[in-house]
């Protein structure tokens, strides 16, 4: 049976890692298979959210999308797949990604307690609308915007539930820290660089900054700059704040190391990099190898064996 982890226990687990000088490794899991091996090969914490199954279906994560709610109810949602994840693991905390602005969860306490009673050990704000300011202001005015994400973190913290908060802007990170977020995840936008990833940074000509938009893919340089800004902002409120990096180029071990070489964050969260990228690399190689095999020339159906 997977034990339940209290907020204090999770924080102790993370601080042990930090005291040793190692980065915190958070694995975003889209299937039991991924959770099983993430635990086995040393992840510190698992996250699960309602869009993980998109990746396992071979589709992009709809980070830049136009959905204003309902994710907590879609097929393969965070509550539905908990059982599959828990079934595959033994002793590691699992954090639920919740859509705070879901129109079917007006009562925030319901949403949080649904996650904890499902079995989750903590919560965080994914999907998020943090990346697109005009739209979140529009929805805030309607009562279902980004402010809900801040409220969710605040309430969960009051309920002594472990919380993480994804932030795209330094000022958001500061707000989340004030609400009591245990971990800030500085997010560098849509992941890119593989078959279901976003477009290469800069390849789409559009003035995203002018629209208050931050979900677009960013280069390693831009990402590191942004992560450091968010990190500094968070630590200006709480110097001991745990900050992780995620998104954008952080989809391979090499790129994650490059980020850790340049930015003073405490670790990283891996999503496409833990399922799509490894599986893509290995199946492409194996597919090619299968296609290069040849039949036995003694096979009566073979006329001549063409070389690979």
């Amino acid at each position: 049976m997977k034990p339940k982890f209290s907020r204090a226990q999770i924080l102790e687990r993370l601080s042990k890692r930090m005291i040793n000088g190692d980065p915190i490794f958070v694995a975003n899991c889209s299937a039991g298979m991924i959770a099983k091996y993430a635990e086995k090969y040393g992840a510190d914490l698992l996250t699960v959210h309602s869009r993980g199954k998109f990746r396992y279906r071979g589709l992009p994560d709809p980070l830049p999308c136009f959905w204003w709610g309902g994710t907590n109810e879609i097929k393969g949602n965070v509550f539905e797949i908990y059982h599959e994840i828990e079934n595959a693991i033994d002793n590691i905390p699992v954090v639920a990604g919740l859509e705070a602005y879901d129109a079917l969860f007006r009562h925030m306490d319901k949403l949080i307690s649904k996650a904890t009673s499902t079995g989750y050990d903590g919560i965080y704000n994914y999907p998020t609308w943090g990346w697109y300011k005009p739209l979140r202001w529009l929805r805030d005015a309607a009562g279902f915007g980004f402010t809900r994400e801040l409220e969710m973190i605040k309430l969960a913290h009051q309920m002594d539930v472990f919380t993480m908060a994804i932030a795209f802007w330094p000022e958001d990170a500061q707000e989340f820290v004030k609400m009591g977020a245990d971990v800030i995840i500085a997010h560098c936008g849509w992941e890119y660089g593989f078959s279901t990833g976003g477009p290469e940074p800069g390849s789409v000509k559009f003035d995203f900054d002018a629209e208050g938009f931050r979900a677009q893919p960013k280069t390693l340089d831009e990402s590191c700059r942004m992560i450091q800004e968010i990190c500094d902002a968070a630590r200006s409120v709480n110097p001991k704040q745990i900050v992780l990096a995620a998104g954008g180029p952080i989809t391979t071990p090499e790129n994650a190391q490059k980020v850790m070489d340049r930015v003073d964050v405490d670790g990283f969260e891996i999503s496409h990099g833990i399922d799509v990228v490894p599986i893509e690399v290995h199946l492409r190689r194996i597919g090619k190898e299968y296609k290069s095999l040849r039949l036995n020339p003694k096979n009566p159906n073979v006329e001549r064996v063409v070389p690979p």
Partner: protein
Amino acid sequence: MVSYSERKRILDAVGEPIPTRKEILDKWWAQIKQGIPIIYAGCSVGLVAKYAEEMGLDAIVTYETGLSRHWGMPTTLLADPNRWSFPMYEEIRTQVVNTPLIAGVEAYDPRFQGERGLIRMIRTVIEIGYDGIQNFPTLSFVPAIYSLREHLNMGWKREVELVKICNDLDIFTMWYACSPEHAKDVAAAGTDAVVPHAGWTVGGQVGAPPIKRYPKTWITPISNLDEACRHVQEITDAARSVNPKCISLSHGGPFIDIPAVRYMFQHTTTDGFEAASAWERVPVENALADFIPKYRAIKKTVRKK
């Protein structure tokens, strides 16, 4: 003005295209004549189907046991299999355009009993959008079980009957056979390809336990590569003795990775290989074993605090 035929015209125009049996076989035979094996993959989630299509594998088959692999569990025969597998279609089809998409079906499904039961099953499968049919899960594995069910018309004979109906309807089939007798049965019934099965796949992190092979419990794996090759050859020869144009596609047992499959092609005259655990389980396990420890090994080098 109401036109019923207009709706029919539009529905016909947007219907899911399906390759004819002849188109699939012509392509496969051209390939076999050149000595290029037919490789097809068992895919139960979109992500692995995506790369099977991209790498140009020759067919994709869906069935319910694959789901358990992605749960991180040993391959598991799930109850009421068609209720699991038929709804997998949308997720897989989204990734599959150019590759024949074959439905694994359980022929004994209680929803499709009675005289026209199998025909209704075929209609369901083709209406969903699949391009062909394969018998999975199959009772070919376990004569002890099917012999008791035969008088209820829920045994191996029903699987053979399904081949016959598909053959009459000109629907593409590939059929698992665990023994030479089974291969002869389905070759005579008109299957396009027989799939010699060497038992539950051995190898990887949660492969079949290598217990002893019982004489007629053919789900127990053949772990030894040479023995498995002999088994494949016997079944292949049996099928060809009935119909020389029956393709042989081997599967299971110790055939789990490229070296083993290469060895099989060197030591048998089979025409191809079905990679199921060898496509969607072991390579994924290896991929995760390759990447995740590298994430764990990342060092924190910047310290401002």
